[in-house]
């Protein structure tokens, strides 16, 4: 199926509700889907359904799984047209962005047939269970274990930082299936229905006051062996594939982590009277435009057939640090007014600032990213 930019443009103009053409203000504007999903507005529902009919919830997935079967280049045309009118994604989920690609690469035909359409249709909401209290940056030291009980695994342990686990239907997890093997070996990638007895979650209150993350507990949870993705004890391969995929999305601008114009706009509005603050914003603007140029350059090089590889770590590091810097400066720009933290306040300067502190921790800490840059891009020795 070839895609025609003109046709897409017309279709979007006709079918994308006006309300769905404004930037998402926060979680309340995101369409997540799932068993317990209730649309937040008629426009959201309409937009979701219209996209679904064309396979545009997952444009690059094969049609048999509910996608539109677009190539990457074709999908880029669609995305560009959507960006042009500021259209929101019809459906957002970790099933689309993370599990789907992993299943397409590692899943059995049965797994693909079972899970992919339900993701595409927004019927099942997924969450990710990687980190544990004792396994953060050092993920390979994870301790949640899955014992072989013949036809099923018995899973016991605890995950942390599972995004929206309290709202999710299923979770994809890294679990230890072999205690004798060394660290990365002996880990498997399994899918667990959150409705299984023994699964429980507890939201984590963040410093911003929000609770997008949970602790997730597994207490003698029985998981059918058919839910193992990839080979037994080789879940690390699946996780690594996903991680690369995730960081490449950042490179492609697929992350909303980073808004290269937000600081300028705020500064132009407020026009900082303080010359020192203005100087700091100006330098941050220069660094931000330069970083954005690197992100685009790498993306163009990949589009020309290059490999992004470990450069994704560079982008992750710098994007996160610049975003933190932007929020620090936005707070300074807001002055004392930015300190209000109650019901009456202006929307979210302080919340945004506090939330941004996690950017350099989640998805690989800045320290781990710099280790990767040094060792893999610069080839510096371990000794």
């Amino acid at each position, binding site marked *: 199926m070839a895609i025609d930019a003109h046709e897409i443009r017309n279709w979007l103009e006709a079918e994308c509700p006006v309300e769905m053409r404004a930037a998402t203000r926060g979680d309340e504007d995101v369409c997540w889907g799932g068993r317990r999903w209730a649309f937040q507005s008629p426009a959201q529902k309409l937009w979701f359904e219209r996209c679904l009919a064309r396979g545009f919830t997952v444009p690059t997935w094969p049609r048999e799984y509910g996608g539109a079967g677009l190539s990457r280049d074709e999908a880029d045309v669609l995305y560009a047209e959507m960006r042009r009118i500021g259209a929101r994604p019809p459906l957002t989920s970790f099933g689309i962005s993370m599990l789907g690609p992993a299943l397409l690469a590692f899943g059995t035909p049965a797994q693909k047939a079972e899970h992919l359409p339900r993701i595409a249709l927004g019927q099942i909401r997924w969450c990710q269970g990687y980190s544990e209290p004792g396994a953060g*940056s050092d993920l390979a030291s994870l301790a949640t274990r899955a014992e072989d009980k013949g036809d099923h695994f018995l899973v016991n342990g605890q995950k942390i930082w599972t995004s929206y686990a309290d709202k999710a239907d299923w979770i994809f997890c890294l679990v230890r299936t072999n205690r004798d093997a060394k660290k990365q070996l002996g880990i498997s990638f399994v899918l667990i229905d959150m409705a299984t007895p023994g699964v429980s979650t507890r939201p984590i209150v963040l410093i911003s006051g929000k609770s997008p993350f949970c602790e997730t507990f597994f207490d003698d949870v029985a998981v059918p062996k058919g839910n193992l993705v990839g080979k037994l004890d080789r879940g690390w391969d699946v996780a690594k594939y996903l991680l690369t995929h995730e960081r490449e999305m950042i490179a492609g601008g697929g992350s909303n982590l980073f808004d290269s114009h937000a600081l300028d706009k705020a500064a132009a509005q407020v026009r900082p009277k*303080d010359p020192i603050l203005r100087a700091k914003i100006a330098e941050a603007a220069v660094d931000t435009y330069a970083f954005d140029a690197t992100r685009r350059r790498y993306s163009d090089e990949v589009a020309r057939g290059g490999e992004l590889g470990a450069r994704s770590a560079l982008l992750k590091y710098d994007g996160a640090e610049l975003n933190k810097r932007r929020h620090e400066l936005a707070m*300074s720009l807001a002055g*004392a007014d930015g300190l209000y*933290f109650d019901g009456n306040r202006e929307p979210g300067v302080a919340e945004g600032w506090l939330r941004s502190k996690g950017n350099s*921790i989640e998805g690989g800490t800045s*320290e781990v990213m710099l280790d990767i840059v040094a060792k893999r891009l610069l080839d510096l020795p371990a000794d």
Partner: protein
Amino acid sequence: MLTLDEDQTLLMDSARAGVAQASPVSEYRRLREPQGEGFSRRFWATCGEMGWSGVLVDEAHGGSGFGVLGAGLLAREMARTLTLSPFLSTAVLAAAALGAGGSPAQRQEWLPRIAAAEAIVAFAHEDTPGGWPTMAHLESPDFRLEGEKSFVLDGHVADALIVSARTDNGPYLVLVDPKANGVSRQTRILVDGRRVATYRFEGVEVDEFAFLPGGALALERTLDVARAVLAASACGVAEEAFRRTLEYLKERRQFDRRIGSFQALQHRAGLAHIAVENAWSATLVALQALDSGANSAAFDVAVAKSKASRAAQEVTAECLQMHGGVGMTDAFDVGLYLKRARVDATLFGDAAFHADRVATMLGY
């Protein structure tokens, strides 16, 4: 000498022990909740008993007279456990204003009650941006006060207000009864749980005895004292956050090592330590200069507030990062220090504002 004498050391040590006991971080967590007053009257009474609320009040008015350095030492200790109390509003701002600019009658009326922690006196200075500038108009026989003030610390529970107002004779501080006709207020909560009020004054009548005779000089002195004491508070925040982070670095293991053994983190911890040390040194210089009446005091205060504000913000952010994911949770204390640092750094002029003043004072 940039050292503490015996009395000062004693004050600091007893405050550290006393504050930790009377107002630990768990107490802060209780007090920050929106339903309460945002501070503990019991702890404020303790401040009275210990002579802390009278730190800037002379002995003749029932105070302990430890001076600005004493106030800074107390603020630094109180910051370590994120204490919420009217110390800054009443014991520092109001006492400094009355001490520097009050008439004998004004001092006699308020200073003993401040020293005994029997009154809460708030200081209203910041004109609301876009609001009315606060003016005192002479309409014989009395004056009328008009305007709007923001960020009035403890304004929600104040027994009296000291308001800065423009007059035909320059800026003056005026004592205002918050219950007077034409005064209205709204309570707000800051990101560190602190309460402030926004005050509106509409045709509020004040008589001539409400004006502090000290005028503009008293205002400048009060602001400088507040800035130096806030710098000291910021130092306490940064020091304590860093102390806890060092403990964490020595405990937390990843990759089969204590994370504090990673050289990159060691060097960054070293830089944080240097920032904290320099911030406290600059603050000590400023506190001493205010006590000795040195010519350099205004400059020293600007250096201290700029340095301590920046150091506190940067160091607490480093501390959070070094905690990794748990640092992002409200259950861990390190994020509380990040928030408090931002508030201390911002009130009465942030790092950039005071760096600009430094440059201007140096002639460039």
